[in-house]
């Protein structure tokens, strides 16, 4: 199968038309090709939103994945596991706030199935915040460290 050719201009145009005309969907077919753009209306309506609030005793606290207010880029957890801030008990932490790190430096370890996986700095920069405590569980996608 050939590569998809993204008809960016066409899509942008349709999106504009969608909004301008207060539509929710436009579909165009031509030969074997179809473009469909659609948009959900911002119902104030949030059904079932009240249901099953996360229970208080959840082992892994849900943290708002909001963008941090400080400048900087959050490093997210690439796996579920237990975070270790130091290479071994009693040793100094890999990093502390205001440290300067280089791309590839180990920031912390994440243990999963008895394996300790180093989390490396995705780029060089200054550590603005360490958002996780030593020996605590983290979920996939959780914010761990903020690098400026």
């Amino acid at each position, binding site marked *: 199968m050939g590569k998809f050719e993204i008809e960016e201009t066409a899509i942008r145009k349709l999106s504009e038309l969608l909004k301008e005309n207060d539509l929710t969907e436009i579909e165009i077919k031509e030969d074997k090709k179809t473009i469909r753009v659609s948009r*959900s209306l911002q119902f104030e309506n*949030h059904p*079932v*939103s009240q249901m*099953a609030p996360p229970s208080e005793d959840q*082992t892994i606290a849900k943290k708002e994945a909001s963008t941090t207010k400080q400048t900087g880029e959050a490093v997210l957890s690439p796996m*579920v596991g237990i975070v270790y801030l130091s290479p071994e008990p009693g040793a100094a932490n890999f990093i502390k706030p205001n440290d300067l790190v280089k791309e590839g430096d180990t920031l912390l370890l994440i243990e*999963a199935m008895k394996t300790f996986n180093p989390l490396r700095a995705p780029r060089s920069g200054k550590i603005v915040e360490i958002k996780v405590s030593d020996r605590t569980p983290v979920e996939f996608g959780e914010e761990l460290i903020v690098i400026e």
Partner: protein
Amino acid sequence: MFEKVLIANRGEIALRINRACHEMGISTVAVHSTADADAMHVRLADESVCIGGATASESYLNIPGIITAAVITNANAIHPGYGFLSESARFASIVEEHGINFIGPTAEHIKLMGDKIASKSKVKELGIPVVPGSDGEITDLTTALKVSEHLGYPVLVKASAGGGGRGMQVVHEKSDLEASISRARAEAKAAFGDDALYLEKFLERPRHIEIQILGDGNNNVIHLGERDCSLQRRHQKVLEEAGCTILDSEERDTIGRKVCQALSKLGYKNAGTIEFLYENGEFYFIEMNTRLQVEHPVTEMVTGLDIVKEQLRIAAGSSLSLSQNEVSYRGHAIECRINAENAADFTPSPGLVKDYHPPGGLGVRVDSGLYAGYRVQPHYDSLVSKLIIHGENRNECVMRLRRALDEYVITGISTTIPLHQEIIAQPEFLAGDYDIHWLAKMVERRTTP
């Protein structure tokens, strides 16, 4: 009993398991992908852990992620549901190695039954009927003629190395055998570089009938009767019934007894299903599913048993909660698999569910993770709801199913509800007169005017 169970699945089956756990006072851990953060199985679980990205390989197939989530949350056991890792012997082993209970059979039995050839020879040895055929390769026409005579025409000539229907010939009459063997041999040679052939009895209009069993691992095995799953499209089951309209209770008892004896010898533990083709009063083994099945609810409706609770009890080391003579059947049940697909051309239809209103009343059960405002994900299976109907007899069941399908409101996405409405309006369906090819023909009929 377990205090906490991790459910390594999503969708309606994760919800199903969550319900059984809660009804037994067991707390639950949902694992989920980033795409499923708002899913019903996550909302209703006591705890939840995001284990990976949207694709199944990053999340629901991510063994280290699931094991780690279980360790972190102190779960005593893992229920794999169906699909995903449910039939991975490797996963079952790893779970047990971590001191966590795997809610299912042993890794050894999963492995055995996952091997098409080994499982067939094993169950044959244990006394379960398989499709009869030549015991190995056919090299000369005389033997081929003798074997075919013995099997009874039509017979199927198959390539030993085969697959996908290539090197396969149906022979209806003795006089065609020689020519068919030649053709099959040529095709097999061309396709697989190997012209070895064997013979098998050919089933023209078989039904798919399966037997649900429960074993305690200590050689006690009971069966819960049969399900007829002949209504399939592209090897996917669409609508299932319990019981089967053409099986009488004596036939049920006979095949049930054979299956129980065989699996008892094997020392099988937990729930399982033996799938058969059935034609002219004979059963022929297809495969064994070593897990909970999508269609288990129809058996629950007619036996009154909660199969998931039985799984949990067995996994926790209890003996079976009832003996074979305590199993009884009441009425008839049908399950419709409702997929997020266009009912006309079966194209997937993920997207935002706008209105959602399931049917209610006597004899109506809905197993679904849908709700108004939920977005059906494109990453996974399109099954979004199971509508399960019970009636005192098949006629009442079908009439009730009709009115329940009419009541069911799902807007924003397309579903296969119209397909089910079409199926149950067909005279053949109403008469219970169908085989595994029937549904494909029905679909074909309507597209070729």
